[in-house]
């Protein structure tokens, strides 16, 4: 009350800025998305494609962790499954890239349901986290040891690129970038649509309190499994796009370390928010990329950034901006 009477003028001006903050954020995002289309430097296009894919991956992980509150550590494994399934279908079944996507997604979806159904019956994150962790590692070991099919731990070279579609040639760097950006936008769209649907509201209710959600008539396990399947399928889609972009896949991309790093991106960016995974990905990849110091020290600095952010900014960058905006709005409402 006191602050409201003493500083109303100061509160109003930042409020206008604060309300613009998310719009400004998305504007910057749109501008960043357009950069690799305008600047044709190979490095910029390459980095843009990588960032778009990683941001898509983090956004899809946000669906199960941020919105549904279930701690999945198998995301990298499904990313790899998408890549391997699509590549193997193209190589052995003679399918085209686009035709391979649907069966690859179906494989990932069935696997996710098979893992999620028994694992998600339990309340409390640790069982699900450990089971997905173990399943993810098993899948990686399978990819590394099934030499005849996957090419073993050395990985697999992939000579193909997606067939032209809508007049876009995907064999060029910029063509792949368009595909990766489209994947990111699609993932964002799907996650946003889920978030503000009945399904998404049920997931948020489950995240906040499973018992309460169940008492309201929400089928808790079924909703959790559906969220896990959707999230894993989106990861597999990102993997299928990654395969022709990198031209090389190996079981390394499925390691649990990668999944844990994705969780880190979510928390740094702001878990459960729409923009958070993108901001987190940018911090994770852009900070080391632009720090021109020796290889090991870049990661050290990134580690320091993560520790400091988690200790002093636990809601993440986007979470902090949201909170700032809400508080401003509240104090203005009080003043008027």
């Amino acid at each position, binding site marked *: 009350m006191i602050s409201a009477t003493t500083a109303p003028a100061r509160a109003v001006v930042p409020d206008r800025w604060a309300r613009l903050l998310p719009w400004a954020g998305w504007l910057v995002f749109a501008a960043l998305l357009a950069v690799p289309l305008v600047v044709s430097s190979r490095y910029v296009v390459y980095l843009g494609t990588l960032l778009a894919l990683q941001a898509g991956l983090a956004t899809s992980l946000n669906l199960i962790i941020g919105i549904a509150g279930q701690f999945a550590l198998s995301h990298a494994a499904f990313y790899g499954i998408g890549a391997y399934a699509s590549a193997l279908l193209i190589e052995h079944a003679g399918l085209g890239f686009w035709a391979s996507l649907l069966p690859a997604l179906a494989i990932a979806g069935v696997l996710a349901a098979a893992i999620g159904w028994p694992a998600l019956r339990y309340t409390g994150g*640790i069982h699900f986290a450990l089971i997905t962790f173990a399943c993810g590692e098993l899948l990686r070991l399978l990819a590394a040891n099934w030499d005849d099919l996957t090419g073993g731990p050395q990985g697999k070279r992939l000579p193909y690129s997606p067939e032209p579609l809508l007049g876009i040639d995907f064999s060029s760097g910029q063509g792949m970038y368009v595909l990766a950006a489209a994947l990111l936008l699609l993932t964002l769209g799907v996650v946003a649509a889920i978030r503000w649907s009945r399904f998404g509201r049920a997931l948020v209710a489950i995240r906040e309190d499973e018992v309460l959600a169940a008492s309201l008539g929400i089928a808790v396990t079924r909703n959790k499994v559906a969220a896990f399947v959707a999230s894993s399928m989106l990861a597999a889609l990102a993997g299928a796009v990654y395969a022709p972009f990198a031209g090389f896949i190996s079981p390394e991309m499925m390691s649990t370390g990668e999944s844990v790093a994705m969780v880190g991106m979510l*928390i740094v960016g702001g878990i459960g928010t729409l923009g958070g995974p993108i901001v987190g990905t940018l911090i994770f990849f852009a900070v080391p990329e632009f720090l021109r110091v020796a290889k090991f020290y870049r990661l050290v600095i990134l*580690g320091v950034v*993560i*520790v400091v952010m988690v*200790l002093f900014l*636990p809601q993440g960058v986007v979470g902090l901006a949201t909170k700032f905006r809400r508080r401003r709005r509240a104090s203005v409402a009080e003043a008027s």
Partner: protein
Amino acid sequence: MWLDIVQTASDGLMVGGLYASVALGITLVFGLVGMLNFAHGQMVMLGAYVAFFTTAAGLGFWVGLGLAIIAMALFGALLERAVFRRTLSDPMMGLTVSLGLIMIIENLAAAWFTPDPRFMEPPLSGDVRLGPLVLSSQRLLVMALTTALIGGFYLFLKATTLGKAIRAMAQNRQGAALVGVKVTRVSAVIFAIGSGLAGAAGALYGSLFAISPFMGTAPLMKGFILAAFGGLGSVPGAIIAGCLLGLAESFGSRYLSASFRDGYGFVVLILTLLFMPNGLFGKRKARV
């Protein structure tokens, strides 16, 4: 045939003891205090390096082992104070913080110690012959040392006041606080003990296998598997689970497939979690 089985079993128990000493630290820190420290594996790595440099400086393996335990216990106490105490409310925070810590520790180690693998001079060499059995002396020594470590720790839990306080906290954190256990301080001690155990495990690992800045991942994963398998917070659970996993791995790789060695643990873990969600000895409250 029988010879082979006994040989495989003794190998399994030896590795199992190492696993158990890592798992003990994790089950204590995560199960009792509720701090999710993924950087536990990096403590194993640092412990191995401490032992390596001490041995290389000519002070011998035993000084190295002692220094590794003390250094890691101090480092653990420092980490608990500076970082993990602030993440108590949210295990997710603990996970992310330890992810950052792993990056810092691993890459600093890689920059300072170079990423090349190193090999430590073991204090014992040669084999011991027990009738037709051939056992490596160093492996026997490691087995004896892990047994001594675990046994000593068990005595500490059973016989000392501090050990009693830890057991009280394991049963009921609030109840322990009500009867005068200084929960925060005991938590710090548990963290330091867990880290010291990791340091000891590191020194022993280093006497058998190659030492490199990225060696911490495998013991960490196994430690988490075992902590869950044995029941979070259960000391006998972690020990028995460690031995069982060691046996499963050595028999699996001897008789099934060696390249899938790390997979057997995961199969065990998945089955346990599905059919015995609280682990072998876990209490019903085992959850985050």
